[in-house]
């Protein structure tokens, strides 16, 4: 979105605003905590979104990007619709996820790895592939947990809800050309 750079503000704040549609609403945060109060995962976050916004304003890049807050977000959007200042909170947390991966600060969470496995299947098949996704993700990240997930997989299989083969879209080439172009155009990672 177009907005005026905030005079005298840290570049971190400006970066977050720049990368988020309506990110400039962040400047209106009154620290009321309706986000942190609404969050279903709030109790497990290192800092509530409200606190994170305070830190962004204070320029605390490393503390923010290494927090688990953004990775605890389940995209339920309660914070977004309830925010009295219409700050796009969920979208800002998506921005922080991307910045945190780019900065190599995403630690102590399997979420980026799951996202990478997912993106791998989309990029190479054009469709998500549940069995493959789970296998790839667990093998690469937590092989021990895979054993625990076994019975669930069997149940799914028994109910005809698990496929062994990924579907590949017909015009994968087209999709991949689009993906490549998008990466060139806009991605910082």
């Amino acid at each position, binding site marked *: *979105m*177009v907005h005026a750079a905030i005079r005298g503000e840290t570049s971190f704040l400006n970066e977050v605003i720049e990368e988020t*549609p309506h990110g400039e609403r962040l400047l209106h945060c009154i620290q009321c905590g309706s986000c942190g109060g609404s969050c*279903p*995962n709030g109790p*497990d976050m290192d800092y509530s979104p409200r606190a994170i916004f305070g830190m962004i304003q204070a320029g605390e890049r490393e503390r923010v990007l290494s927090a688990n807050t953004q990775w*605890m977000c*389940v*995209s*339920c*959007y*309660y914070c*977004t*619709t309830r925010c009295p200042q219409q700050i*796009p909170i*969920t979208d800002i947390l*998506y*921005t922080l*996820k*991307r910045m945190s*991966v780019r900065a190599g600060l995403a630690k102590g*969470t*399997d*979420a*980026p790895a*799951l*996202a*990478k496995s*997912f*993106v791998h*299947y*989309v990029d190479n098949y*054009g*469709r*998500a592939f*549940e069995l493959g996704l*789970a296998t790839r993700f667990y093998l690469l990240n937590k092989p021990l947990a895979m054993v625990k997930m076994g019975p*669930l997989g069997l*149940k*799914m299989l028994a*109910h*005809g*809800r*698990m496929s062994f083969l990924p*579907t590949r*879209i*017909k*015009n994968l080439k*087209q*999709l991949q*050309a*689009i*993906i*490549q*172009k*998008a*990466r060139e*155009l*806009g*991605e910082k990672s």
Partner: protein
Amino acid sequence: MKYAFYPGCSLECSSAAYAQSIAAVCRLLGIELAEVEDWNCCGATEYHSLHRLTAAAVIARNLALVDGSLTELVAPCAACFLNLKKVDHQMSEDPAWASKVNAALAAGGLMYEPGRVKVRHLVEVLHSDVGEEGIRRRVKQPLRGLKVAPYYGCQIVRPYKDVDNTEYPMKLDELMSWVEAEVVPYPTKAACCGGHMTQISEAQAYELLRRLLQSAEDAGADVILTMCPMCQLNLDAYQSGVNSYFGTKFRIPILFFTQVLGLAFGLPLKQLGFGKEIVAAIPILKQKVPAALAAASAG
């Protein structure tokens, strides 16, 4: 009534029951769903976490592929619905962003004009386009005596406020009351099912699921109805996990709302994908709506 249809990856296999029951119910109601040719995955919540523009371009490819004669695209999955709607919305309100997305699409010979396609969730179509009269007219087996807990989850009703009330949505409640099921009010009907937390952090996921199951059970629900493959999968497949984690004894069948609609319409069980749910639904249906079940089994 003809709509473009974006089934989404889960309907291909893990939520085949949803795919089957959608097909059966829509056929009966005269809704023609034209599947988008060679659609690709919407990227769920995962793609945005790593790449913003690529995620938008991947999603926009589907919008660009919608048959030019159709203006409304129906998605049955909450995540697909939101992703498609959001990309269209963000392209519409920010022309600079739209031209970036279109520059990427151009590499595949495609273009999407923002606002051309109106993205809708299936429940909106059944509730608003078919409407009360259209639904009631088809009811052959009123589901009197079946206590259903309609579950909306997050992304159908938030962040966009034009689908239903963001806090206490009612459309599925109303739809179910039209087939005379007994709708139980319960406070968590728009709370989160945990999404991908079941994959990355089971403690959190189980807690979120427990809240929903507890709340529906306290309200006396026989079944929970979902409108999203992910919600159904989490509540159904992880229910025994929740039980062993917390020592609870939940046994609540989780059905797709279209399966229950189909039952009320007198469609045969095998067209509605019953039996694929992990917590079996047939026993409670036999107990609560024996006539409807008998009719469906015979058909």
